[in-house]
């Protein structure tokens, strides 16, 4: 018996006495259709008044059987699936899958392809974090205003996606061995003006939000998770970094030449919802820093290695992981020598980050649980696949 166990038994005793007082706990279903579940996710909470006593997560409403479908298609045909796994960070998903396939095939990506991949992965991070922070403040009860502010920036990123590959959300841009198309001429000037504007924008968001008393009251000390617990639950991404653990795959396990760029890992102190928000804001700044280093140093040359469309990798398995906006995104591929993967598995950061929601929300109020869910930044497409 540790002191922690003592606390737990004392706490459960309290809950029993509360129940013994004659209050009836209420079970409330949040979702699958609910404004704050970010898709079709169902959270079953047991409430004593407004206090969450138990939370049960039900997933699977958006299951599209992607992993099984992928076993019937060639490696290249599977790339569009990855767009739809995490539809808010399609570029990162493309990238992770292509890295796994390249490892299986033993393909070397040309330097220009590497640079373009980094460029779009970081732009995707800016867009995804804009969305995450906007919806987070929305869940805190702001009437869509921050969301629309954040959407302005996301919109410009999506415009750049569109001018490069024709699609905004489901980009299908990365290919095994590089990227599908070269950068269009107008991209770099657009990117440059974007990079020029963003510091002012971020400063104005910080003016608006960092000192907002209501936001502090709603998000600080809410949904706290300790670094030990975060590591035990295998959390990754901004949630893990908000607890103070400096863990970023771009530094821990560099891919696509991230070791050549200078950037920092922002970490929080408390591991609460507000720290997650702060870490995301700081990460946007770091992404812009990488883009600034990149924009003048994109090497010339081919952007796509010569890989046959019906590539048959040798028998074997490969796992590649990237730091997606939501955390460690991994793809595990097993090849039996045929043009289609024998096994296609995705390690979705949203699903694993979500598993800590119960720990974070019990003991808080219903409103806190919603804020915590918003701060985790889930994408249901990625959870259910």
């Amino acid at each position, binding site marked *: 018996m540790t002191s922690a166990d003592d606390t737990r038994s004392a706490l459960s005793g309290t809950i029993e006495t509360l129940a013994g007082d004659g209050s009836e706990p209420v079970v409330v279903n949040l979702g699958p259709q609910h*404004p704050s579940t970010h898709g079709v996710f169902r959270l079953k909470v047991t409430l004593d008044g407004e206090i969450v006593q138990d939370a049960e997560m039900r997933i699977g409403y958006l299951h599209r059987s992607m992993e099984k479908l992928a076993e019937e298609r060639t490696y290249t045909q599977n790339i569009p699936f990855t767009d739809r796994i995490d539809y808010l960070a399609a570029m990162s998903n493309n990238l992770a899958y292509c890295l796994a396939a390249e490892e299986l095939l033993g393909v070397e990506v040309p330097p220009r392809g590497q640079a373009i991949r980094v460029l779009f992965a970081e732009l995707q991070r800016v867009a995804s974090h804009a969305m995450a922070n906007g919806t987070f403040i929305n869940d805190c009860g702001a009437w869509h205003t921050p969301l629309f502010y954040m959407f302005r920036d996301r919109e410009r990123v999506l415009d750049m996606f569109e001018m490069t590959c024709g699609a905004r959300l489901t980009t299908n841009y990365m290919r095994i061995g590089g990227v599908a198309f070269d950068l269009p001429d107008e991209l770099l000037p657009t990117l440059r003006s974007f990079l020029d504007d963003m510091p002012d924008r971020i400063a104005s968001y910080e003016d608006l939000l960092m000192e907002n008393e209501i936001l*502090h009251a*709603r998000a600080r000390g809410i949904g706290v998770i300790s670094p030990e617990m975060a*590591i035990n639950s295998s959390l990754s991404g901004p949630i893990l970094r908000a607890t103070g*653990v*400096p863990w970023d795959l771009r530094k*821990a396990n560099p891919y696509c030449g991230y070791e050549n760029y200078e950037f920092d890992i*922002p970490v*929080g102190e408390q591991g609460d919802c507000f*720290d997650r928000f702060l870490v995301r804001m700081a990460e946007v700044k770091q992404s812009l820093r990488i883009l600034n280093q990149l924009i003048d140093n994109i090497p010339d040359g081919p952007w796509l290695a010569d890989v046959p469309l019906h590539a048959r990798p040798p028998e074997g398995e490969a796992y590649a992981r990237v730091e997606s906006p939501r955390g460690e995104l991994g793809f595990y591929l097993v090849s039996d020598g045929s043009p289609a993967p024998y096994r296609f598995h995705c390690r979705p950061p949203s699903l694993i980050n979500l598993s800590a929601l119960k720990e974070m929300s019990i003991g808080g109020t219903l409103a806190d649980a919603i804020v915590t869910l918003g701060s985790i930044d889930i994408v249901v497409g990625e959870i259910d696949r």
Partner: protein
Amino acid sequence: MSGFDLAVVLGAWYDFRDLNNLSRLITEWIADWGPDWLSSIVTGLLGSLGILAVIGPTLLVLIWVERKVIARFQQRYGPNRVGPKGLLQPVADAIKLILKEQLAPRAADKLIFFLPPVLIFVPGLLIWGVLPFGPRMSVADLNVGVLFLLAVSGTGVLVLFMAGWSSNNKYALFGAMRAVAMSISYEVPMVLALLTLVVFSGTMSVNGIVEWQQQEDVIFILLFPLSAIAFFFAASAELNRTPADISEAESEIVAGYHTEYSGMRFGLFYAVELGNTLVISAFIATFFLGGWWLWGLDQWVPSWIILLAKTGAVYFLLIWTRGTLPRLRIDQLMSFCWKALVPATLIFVAVAAVERTLLVTQGWDTTIALPIMAVINIALTLGAVMLFARLARSERLRRPARTTLVRDRVGGLAAAREVASQAGGGD
């Protein structure tokens, strides 16, 4: 005064500065031939029709105004497709809502479920009765008008409770409980804030309060700023607007007490909510900004236009807070009410009583005494606000939230501890 003699047209039916003239002439004409009960009924009907005629179109325009203003806050255009500048958008919405199917949950308490969308109109419309649009322009100038306002607005809670309870839906029940708890709590600072005005002006008539402000050439927001702030916040809580819209918090309990209402029934709740916002803005303008009076301008411009302009200003402020602020949690709202607003307004009731007694017993010249009191009260308000900010913020100021940038260290717990110790040492 300049050459234009106001008395020349005052009292004629076409003098639109005071619409009461028209109604008075009609009543007198009826009194000539009809029984006297008819004339009182006709006066009442005229007033009610006048109010309805103002509210109906105003609500339609207000929906458009609110959406347009919020859209501008959010860097978008807002409705701009139906009609010129999107002005007909509310009409289109209403038609859509009327055509929608009216659903009722099978387990709902049918009688109580059907009543609230209608009943919710009653307090919302009754409040207009005591609002003075001009020196003699109010449907019922009760000598307990302030109490009437509080009493009638308090009954709205019952209707919300009926709606939430009868829906047999947990979100609705949560919304209803929150609405009732909030409304009961925030009625206290609201009453206390108005009590300062009543004590100081010595009248409970709404028009009397305006006339006092006119007579003393001062508006109450200068004399009792804290009461104005408390009333504004309490009103926004009663109106379910951010930062206090917890009873229909979209991100938590979907739509609160009216979750189960579809079609035009929802539309009615929505309309009443806007109407209440408008009338409370009008009362804030009346109590704290001088109502229909504006330092003599009311002699030249019709008084009701002045009131509407002030109302618009307050309404814009309400939209502004809605478009800007996140929502507080219910326990935070409750503790703000009971631990901050109630003591502060209570203190100001005492301050008002002391100042009133001094004015009456010492016979001071109000032109000198009132500005001095205003300065004292503004200073007291600033002190109270700063004290509260200090108490509320002290913990946060001690530990500002921030991120630490880590360049070379990657790892698990050990790295986290190292980073934390370095960050702590660097402070």
